[in-house]
């Protein structure tokens, strides 16, 4: 955790410079490309050419200049009609008229220049297209390992998300410090594996090399399987470390009423008249002033009655209505006068706390999340500044990372929500005192764009919805337009990683989870089929069967036998 504030790991970065000369030639440079940052090379062997593949050429300073293939164009080709006959090989026709070269087609390949790698500055663009005739090589695995990632996979502060999609031998290793301090966003359509990817990231954060303090807001109860990390051999450290997984089920979620603010309470209550709101606001400010430490619903009710009472001391009509409404909060199982989930209960290094909220109404989820986020923010900020004593429940002496699933519900784009304001505060200021947030959503278009733009690392997975794609083009520029075009064609488990956690955006295949995945789609057909299995049908008949009527008493020798 010391890496969070310091810059100690820069020294380790300096070891990542050795570069071996590349080997496989894939083509020859034709000249500059359509934009100043691109060049075009010509090849007649298209087998090695894949969109997104990394290539290099030797630049002016004898250093390899890395680039990424963005487009392949067929320049010279056989006449179309030759292809119209399915029975005959077009090359046979070409040979017949005297062209017997093995590769008749010529391809023009456009490459986006990434740059030469500098250990301190990252990639530096040479701002110059290679000379025509320069040889273009396939970037070697060793080179990619050295320049794409900021860390070696086993290094402290490294998270191995998976491997390059086009090079299964090159791991994609993220910089955990940047990842958790400057916030991240996982943006992906339904069923594309976003919670799986989040699971992999959390596993990496909890490995002995990282030992993070993580809290997950889990509205669907998908992350419970992370509990398998406890006792899993892969997570055991040399010093005996093993991650702790705390699953807080909905019945154990308790938020102290005095930790809510006026607007939280307003959200929890049904529609109110302006008069009722005004009375409640007055009563709320009084109760907060008079109870410096904690207060209860009863205290608030007393203040409400005191505010809205007629001269004879009888209860006003608004106070009666408010009493009935405030009673609802008191009856809610998630809000309590005394019990509370304090930061101390939720966070510890090497521990992931999963807050399962799958049975809680959306309004209550909003208020619970807002209260917890607000308190974590307060705790981190004030502990960092030394304003909180070790004995207090808000004492939080280590950086924490909070994952918010279905983030578009907590920070929607065009409407107000309880969480939005506190999330904005955390995203803009949390970095200074080690409070990182990971937002996960399947509707990036519905997520507040200010909040999204504050997430400095992005994980983009398959998104088909054109509105969401368009939104991403504007808000996630770092990924590059060429990679964003790939969004609809990605498969499950393929992710575009961009932002500060990696040196250049890459297309990654997420590694297998060490623990089981909890967010899988139901085996619907299997369940339907199961219904008609013989033994199951027998059980159903038994359940539906009418009880056998009790036998009438019989009389034997004039004596009734019951």
């Amino acid at each position, binding site marked *: 955790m010391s890496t969070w504030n310091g810059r100690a790991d820069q020294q380790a970065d300096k070891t990542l410079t050795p570069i071996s000369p590349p080997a496989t030639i894939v083509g020859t440079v034709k000249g500059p490309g359509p934009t100043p940052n691109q060049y075009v090379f010509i090849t007649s062997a298209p087998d090695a050419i894949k969109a997104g593949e990394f290539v290099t050429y030797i630049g002016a300073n004898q250093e390899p200049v890395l680039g990424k293939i963005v487009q392949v164009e067929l320049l010279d080709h056989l006449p179309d*009609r030759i292809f*119209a*006959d399915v*029975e*005959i090989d077009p090359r*046979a*026709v070409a040979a*017949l*008229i*005297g062209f017997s070269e093995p590769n008749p087609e010529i391809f023009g390949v456009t490459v986006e220049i990434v740059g030469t790698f500098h250990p301190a500055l990252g990639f530096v663009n040479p701002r110059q297209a290679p000379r025509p005739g320069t040889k273009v090589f396939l970037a070697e695995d060793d080179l990619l390992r050295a320049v794409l990632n900021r860390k070696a996979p086993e290094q402290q502060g490294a998270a191995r998300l998976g491997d390059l999609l086009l090079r299964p031998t090159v791991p994609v290793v993220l910089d955990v410090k940047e990842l958790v301090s400057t916030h991240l966003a996982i943006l992906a359509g339904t069923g594309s594996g976003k919670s799986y990817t989040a699971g992999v990231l959390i596993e990496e954060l909890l490995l002995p090399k990282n030992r993070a303090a993580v809290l997950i807001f889990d509205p669907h109860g998908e992350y419970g399987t992370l509990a398998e990390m406890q006792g899993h051999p892969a997570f055991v450290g040399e010093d005996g470390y093993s991650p702790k997984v705390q699953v807080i089920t909905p019945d154990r979620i308790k938020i102290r009423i005095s930790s809510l603010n006026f607007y939280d309470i307003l959200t929890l209550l049904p529609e109110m008249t302006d008069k009722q709101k005004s009375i409640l606001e007055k009563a709320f400010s009084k109760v907060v002033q008079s109870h410096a430490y904690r207060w209860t619903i009863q205290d608030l009710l007393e203040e409400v009655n005191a505010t809205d009472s007629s001269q004879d001391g009888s209860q006003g009509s608004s106070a009666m209505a408010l009493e009935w409404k405030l009673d609802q909060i008191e009856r809610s199982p998630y809000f309590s006068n005394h019990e509370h989930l304090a930061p101390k209960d939720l966070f510890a290094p090497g521990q992931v706390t999963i807050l399962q909220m799958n049975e809680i109404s959306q309004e209550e989820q909003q208020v619970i999340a807002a209260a917890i986020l607000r308190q974590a923010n307060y705790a981190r900020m004030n502990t960092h500044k030394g304003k909180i004593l070790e004995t207090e429940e808000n004492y939080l002496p280590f950086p924490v990372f909070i994952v918010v699933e279905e983030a578009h519900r907590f920070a929607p784009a065009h409407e107000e929500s309880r969480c939005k304001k506190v999330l904005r505060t955390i995203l803009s200021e949390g970095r200074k005192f080690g409070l990182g947030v990971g937002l996960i959503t399947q509707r990036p278009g519905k997520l507040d764009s200010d909040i999204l733009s504050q997430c400095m690392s992005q994980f983009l997975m398959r998104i088909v919805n054109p509105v969401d794609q368009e939104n991403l083009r504007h808000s996630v520029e770092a990924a590059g337009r060429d990679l964003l075009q790939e969004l609809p064609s990605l498969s499950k488990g393929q992710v575009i990683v961009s932002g500060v956690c990696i040196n250049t955006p890459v297309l990654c295949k997420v590694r297998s989870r060490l623990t089981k995945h909890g967010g899988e789609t139901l085996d619907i057909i299997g369940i339907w089929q199961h219904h008609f299995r013989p033994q199951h049908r027998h059980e159903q008949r038994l359940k539906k069967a009418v009880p056998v009527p009790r036998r009438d008493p019989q009389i034997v020798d004039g004596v009734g036998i019951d």
Partner: protein
Amino acid sequence: MPEKRIGKVVKSNNHCDYVVELDDRLAVKTPPTTEDYAFGTFVKLESEQRHWAVGVIYNTQLFNPSFLNSGPRLASDPSPFFAPDLQSEMRTLLGVVLLGSLEFSSGQPYGVQGIPKVVVPIHTLVYRMSEEEIYQFHQDRSARTQFAYYGLLLNSGGVFAPHVLRHILDQVSPMFYGQQRRALEILSRELAWKLTLGAMNA
């Protein structure tokens, strides 16, 4: 159809474009019939000493010095000395483009397609080729079908080049079977498109 003499080389326009004067009844006993020197006919250029080249008739021209010369004469009985025999001055000229040559050096003759290296001398005799020879010309050293003069003919065959090619393909395709024939038919279809619907689009 056996081989038959049809004329002799009288001129060339360039290295592979020759002008052949058609034999008439004053030059040979049995002059060639109109079918012998039809458009798209394969010819070979040979002297007694050697075989020179293979070509195809891509153009024809009738040469008539008395054209527009039929006005009234001053003398009622023209002098035979100053007015030569008009009939013998009429000529049919054939444009022949060279496509390669036949190679006889080893076993079965085969065709070497492309521009011949040698210059064919004036007065070299020109013969219509037999079907057997045409078939041999379209086979390479390893007995594979070849049609490598496709580009040469398109570029050197004048304005009618695509039509000559199509004519040749129709003539040559039936000599082959299977894949080879199919490949030739594809070329024929490509040309048919260019000459008909392609011409409409242009």
